[in-house]
């Protein structure tokens, strides 16, 4: 039988999927043990026990200064910023992407500019951003929006423009106006791709969040990582990184479920 037709069962899939994680974990444990044997004070690859103690401190012991549980207040602050940023970026991408994808006039007006914007490295313009928007939540959210929205927009415009011309014509014969074509024909069909695109942008969004929090913040996951980075406190950084990844993966999963629930017709073949 061809390899291509070999489909593992549910159990096999779970096992196979777990394998790389196990390998990574083992590699870490070995590396950590080796380095610690060399220098018991090594901070780069702390032992699991050391990390466990720091998790205990960060997540379940009230902070001496504020009395808060740092991991949770950091998470709350970061998630608020991340979600606000993503929500705003999504709305912008929907409006501009749809306009660009549907109306040739808007495409002529905005597509080159959006393409240009998507190439501007936002990190280099941080001082301007902070002066214009202040150092509060706004500028952190804005950095996420600026980083994510142009790519979402371009992707959406590409998807909208790739709809078969026949569908647009068909809608016109069904008495649709430009607005109704956008609203009832194009929008629902780009939504699944929007969700996928958003999933792909979760990583970059966290990146911008961390970059913004690294500059000025009084709490947040990225803030904490940069604060303790000066001490090479990998026993805090690793759990935080894993936690961020878990959060991102959970959001990814939630978005995937949402897509499947809302747009069953758009599932890849065989899963509808």
């Amino acid at each position, binding site marked *: 039988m061809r390899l291509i037709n070999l489909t593992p069962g549910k159990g096999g899939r779970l096992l196979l999927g777990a394998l790389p994680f196990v390998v990574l974990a083992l590699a870490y444990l070995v590396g950590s043990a080796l380095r610690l044997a060399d220098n018991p004070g090594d901070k780069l690859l702390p032992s699991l026990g050391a990390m466990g103690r720091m998790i205990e401190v960060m997540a379940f012991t009230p902070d001496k200064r504020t009395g808060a549980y740092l991991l949770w207040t950091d998470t709350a602050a970061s998630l608020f910023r991340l979600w606000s940023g993503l929500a705003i970026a999504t709305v912008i991408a929907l409006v501009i992407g749809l306009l660009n994808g549907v109306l040739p006039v808007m495409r002529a007006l905005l597509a080159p500019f959006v393409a240009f914007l998507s190439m501007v490295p936002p990190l280099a313009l941080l001082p301007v951003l902070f002066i214009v928007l202040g150092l509060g939540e706004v500028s952190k959210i804005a950095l996420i929006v600026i980083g994510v929205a142009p790519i979402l927009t371009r992707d959406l415009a590409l998807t909208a423009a790739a709809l078969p011309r026949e569908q647009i014509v*068909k809608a016109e*014969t*069904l008495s649709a106006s430009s*607005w109704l074509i956008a609203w009832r*024909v194009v929008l629902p069909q780009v939504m699944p791709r929007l969700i996928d695109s958003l999933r792909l942008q979760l990583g970059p969004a966290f990146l911008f969040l961390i970059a913004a929090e690294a500059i000025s913040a009084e709490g947040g996951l990225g803030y904490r990582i940069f604060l303790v980075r000066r001490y090479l406190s990998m026993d805090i950084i690793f759990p935080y990184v894993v936690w961020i990844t878990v959060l991102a993966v959970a959001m990814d999963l939630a978005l995937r479920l949402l897509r499947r629930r809302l747009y069953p*017709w758009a599932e890849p073949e065989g899963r509808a």
Partner: protein
Amino acid sequence: MTALTIQNLWKEYGPQVVLESVSLTIAPRAFVALVGPSGCGKTTFLRMLLGQEQPTRGTIVMDGAPLPREPGPDRGVVYQRYSVFPHLTALQNVMIGPEMRAARLAGRLWGKARKGLADDAATLLHEVGLAGAEDKFPAQLSGGMQQRLALAQTLMMRPKLLLLDEPFGALDPGIRAEIHALMRRLWHEHPMTVVMVTHDMREAFALATRVIAFDRPRQRPEERERYGATITNDIALWPPRVAGRQTIYDADIPAGDEDLSRFAIQPGPPRPDQGALR
């Protein structure tokens, strides 16, 4: 209603001439069957009637006015490839046209208006043999079912001009006969003009008032790109079939005949040499 006058129509795609000097007058409420070899430009011709493509040269006049340069609800179409909306269920696909016509902003109806429309849509789905598939998405339907769905979607709008591109090719004889009956009834009841592309001569003669054949007069390979297809045959049915009146055909459709030449009136006029113009 809805007469069409087509004068000296040309269509070129880059260097390739697809159609050349097509002139044609279609009477109101005619049912024109368009036949011709594969690749001769039948679909292209329908696209121009729809306003989806613009002729390279020539004019199309509908009811005395030049054809609008974009498609509209007065002209319905069923494409050769299934062309329903993949994100709507069968019922929603049939309802979307009237919904958009009625609600120019929301594009949706609610409450009683919606209920009434849904009933109409379900009835039409039943008539095209899709009862029971109301809540399926197009991807869950077989090819023939999608094609019938596209037909129902278009018929809901009661277009004045209906354009059909091989709509019944994927249907089995049983369901095809039913759809033929439905088409004939709708054509009798509603004031519409129909242009249908088909490869099935029997179908052409079973439904049409007039059969038009397109073909390329020059077939040598080196000539195929530079010379397009045009009307080579134009046959009116005898005795005439008239919209709204029962004729002998409707009682008993005769087995068709593949041999067009029996009906041929005369070959098209010789093509004037236009080489110098290019």
